[in-house]
């Protein structure tokens, strides 16, 4: 079904349902939440350029032009090629979301839809991804929810230990006994995060080797919580081509948490059944807070996962083993929290690790951050983090002060500085940013949020290949109309009469 067709189906269905049974329509309630967001983005994109080789001094493959740009000069070629920042462009992408929830058709029956419209203005509207995709139906399903089971039919999404996946189909949740949940989903799989079928055009626009068949997805999850101390989950996900000629993905995952006396042990194991590899093995232990201090240690093995419609898996990507320590101290009142973390990882042998010009095969990271509320409504935050790895390194710091306005929202002033990271590029420089943000609850049902940050590129040195002098702004308005389902703190306007 096309997007427009599906939307029409949902709208017509809701209207028909409300009109078909007057007594039902009388009890029906609808709640609509809208979110309008505007961004302002300045950018100086990279553009490819070339200069006559004879105008570039020096020798060798990489040379520098008189104005500092690094170019690649291949012997015997007339031109050296390189990149440089283009003229500044800006865009103002706008998104309008509508979330519609309707209930009152009977106990546990609900319909929900999430629609999104997009457009963009400014000097280069195409700068923002998918700005030309004017309409999306992100979610649209009907739900029947009772104590022991829940059924959903339509476009929906699920998050689990395997991440986020969305689909058009049927979802069933069974809760046979307290602590046990069985879930299953089946339907047409959608491109992760895109809400479009694999052959819907979104992938073809940017990838010549896009899937040629839609996908059919089956996913199951079992969650078991025998006690508040122990919880376990097992997941299986399979996505096959519609013509059954091959798999798009097949994953399984198991994870669990065991808590005792303020301590916890978490573990996860994820296997790419199709690729025959373990994507993740993770074990994390956290001590109980002793004198307000908790220490967490984690060992993790990670290998990236690629769907089988891509050729990336054939390039034998390798994973890494990582150890991580995390120390958190929080004063009992919660007004002061300090965290520090350190990590070290070692990449697997690629089979190409020896010889001249090879990259390091390990990396490490350090970071610390703190949050302090010297007074009830004020909060100061700051942090620093550094990552060093193959091909690049980066450090960044941030700080800010936030003044709470209670339930009305907050205002904040924030600053940050970072050294740029461009993998495998000769580049350096420091970018600083300063800006403010606010979130204001204008009424019980209207909330406005906004931020404005200016970035200044310092110390571009002699390689001005990138320009970070730019301005970014966000403005978002969130509003709600319709009935109150009873999940907020607002007292009902008309409390029921007690006989």
């Amino acid at each position, binding site marked *: 079904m096309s997007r427009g067709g599906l939307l029409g189906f949902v709208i017509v269905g809701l209207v028909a349902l409300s009109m078909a049974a007057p007594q039902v329509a009388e009890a029906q309630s609808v709640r609509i939440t809208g979110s309008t967001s505007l961004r302002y983005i300045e950018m100086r994109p990279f553009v490819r350029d070339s200069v006559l080789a004879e105008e570039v001094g020096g020798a060798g493959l990489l040379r520098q032009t008189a104005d500092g740009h690094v170019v690649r000069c291949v012997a015997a070629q007339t031109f050296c090629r390189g990149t440089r920042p283009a003229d500044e462009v800006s865009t103002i992408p706008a998104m309008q979301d509508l979330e519609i929830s309707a209930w009152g058709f009977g106990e546990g029956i609900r319909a929900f839809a999430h629609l999104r419209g997009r457009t963009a203005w400014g000097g280069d509207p195409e700068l923002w991804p998918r700005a030309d995709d004017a309409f999306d139906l992100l979610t649209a399903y009907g739900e029947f929810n009772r104590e022991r089971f829940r059924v959903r039919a339509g476009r929906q999404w699920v998050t689990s230990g395997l991440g986020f996946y969305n689909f058009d189909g049927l979802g069933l949740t069974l809760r046979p006994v307290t602590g046990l949940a069985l879930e299953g989903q089946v339907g047409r799989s959608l491109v992760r995060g895109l809400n479009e079928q694999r052959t819907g055009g979104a992938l073809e626009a940017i990838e010549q080797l896009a899937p040629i068949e839609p996908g059919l997805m089956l996913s199951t999850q079992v969650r078991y919580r025998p006690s508040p101390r122990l919880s376990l989950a097992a997941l299986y996900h399979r996505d096959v081509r519609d013509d059954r000629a091959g798999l798009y993905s097949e994953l399984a995952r198991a994870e669990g948490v065991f*808590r005792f006396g303020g301590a916890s042990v978490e573990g996860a194991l994820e296997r790419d059944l199709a690729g025959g590899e373990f994507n993740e093995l993770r074990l994390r232990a956290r001590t109980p807070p002793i004198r307000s201090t908790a220490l967490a240690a984690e060992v993790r093995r990670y290998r990236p996962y690629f769907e*089988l419609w891509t050729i990336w898996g054939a390039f034998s990507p390798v994973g890494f083993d990582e150890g991580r320590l995390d120390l958190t101290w929080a004063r009992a009142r919660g007004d002061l929290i300090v965290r520090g973390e350190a990590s070290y990882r070692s990449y697997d042998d690629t089979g190409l690790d020896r010889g001249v010009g090879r990259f390091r095969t390990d990396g490490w990271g350090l970071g610390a951050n703190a949050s302090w509320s010297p007074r009830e409504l004020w909060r100061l935050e700051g942090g620093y983090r550094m990552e060093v790895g193959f091909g690049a390194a980066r450090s960044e710091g941030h700080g800010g002060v936030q003044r709470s306005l209670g339930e009305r929202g907050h205002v904040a002033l924030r600053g940050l500085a970072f050294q740029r990271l461009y993998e495998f590029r000769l580049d350096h420089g420091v970018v600083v940013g300063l800006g403010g943000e606010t979130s204001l609850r204008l009424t019980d049902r209207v909330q406005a949020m906004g931020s404005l940050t200016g970035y200044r590129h310092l110390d571009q040195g002699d390689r001005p290949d990138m320009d970070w002098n730019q301005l970014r702004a966000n403005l978002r308005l969130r509003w709600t109309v319709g009935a109150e389902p009873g999940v907020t703190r607002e007292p009902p306007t008309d409390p029921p009469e007690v006989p």
Partner: protein
Amino acid sequence: MKKLTAPLAVLLVGAGALMASLHSTDDFPHEAHQGLFPVCEGCHLGVVTGVEADLFPDAASCTECHDGVREDEVDWTPPGPRATNLRFFHPEHQDLVDEEGESATCQTCHSALAPDPPPVRMAVAMAPPEGCLQCHVHDAVDHLASTAECASCHLTLPEADRLSVERIAGFPLPESHEDPDFVAQHAPETSLDLISCGVCHARNTCERCHVNADRLEEIAGLERDDRVAILEQGRLAEYPVPATHLDPGWDWDHGTVAFAETARCSNCHTQPSCTECHLEGGERASEVIASLPTPIPDGAPGVDLASAGDRVHPPDFDDRHATFAATGALQCTECHSQQYCSDCHAAADSRDFHPDNFLERHALEVFAGSGNCQSCHSTEAFCRDCHESAGVASEGRLNVAFHTAQPLWILSHGQAARIGLESCASCHRQTDCLECHSTFLGRGVNPHGPGFDAEGMAARNRVTCQWCHLGDPIGDD
């Protein structure tokens, strides 16, 4: 006299002190009349009979002598009914003394501190507290000790109905009540304890804070008192945070305690305490919540947890909530609606997962591999779309002059690709790679690493093999 209860003795001391403080109202010059009255009972018959009206002689008795002729007139009136909460009754005390085979006269108590023999007859005074202790053995360290059984010597407030509001307000505060943990541990353990509470407190006292006052037998057993109501009026309920609640793990673990000891929670918490966070309320939580009291207008307000949701999870929870959510360890839906999750976890549709300036800083997360970008984003569709707009994505293989850190990048890129293939895929189309790595579109450079399971991959999606290989790739290779 044999040993009586220690608290009784202790309280008698206090009672004696109280009586002494009231002495000025009965300022009769006994010593000036020492030759006149042969026995105490002549004037204080009520001490023997128990009739309160006969405790003191009436004023007219004085005029028998002080008639202005024989003696000057005097203006003396007997004290009125005594406003006291002392549980002391002369005839009963005398009976106890007699039962013990002991001897006690008026002088035993009322001239107890006088020299022996007394300098003059009728050198009497109010019985001093120390006098009580001459007979009564006591263990408690002081009058207001927490082990004292107050009701041994004191009436409860309803019984002491002559006490004024001011007198009640002036009751001394036992040291035990100043202990920070007192509120958490103040529940009376025995009926004697409860009666002790009733010496100073009425039901109104409890109802100021206890939202479950009507459910507790201990409170229901107390009577309301108008004088206490006046004292409680305008006082705010106090809910000191128990030590257990200050444990950083409390927010996580409180559910177990709440389920096991719901009645205890009901002392301070009403249902809104829970529903501030438990928006949806799962089966287990709903059971607990439903059994908590509901707020009563003008009743105890209960603990205000309006901002509790901001501090429920430990500071490092953002980083590790995934496993807890995925396994149902914390039953997230008891507090959060799915909308709460989708604010962050609706993949590319989410606008709250990353901070506002994440776009400018996201390279760090990708580089460190800590973000698990692929769990929400399609690398091909999401990352590359934006990178192409920004100009950092590739436009083919050989015209790229982006990787300037390595002069011989083309010779060393294989290692970088196998380590950071996610990054590569965020800029490069697959066809970029096939220009060299395809057997029929490119130069046939083998990209497969050690241990590559060609047969396994072909078995799972043979079509993908055919992007590079003509015919049967297994046979070809």
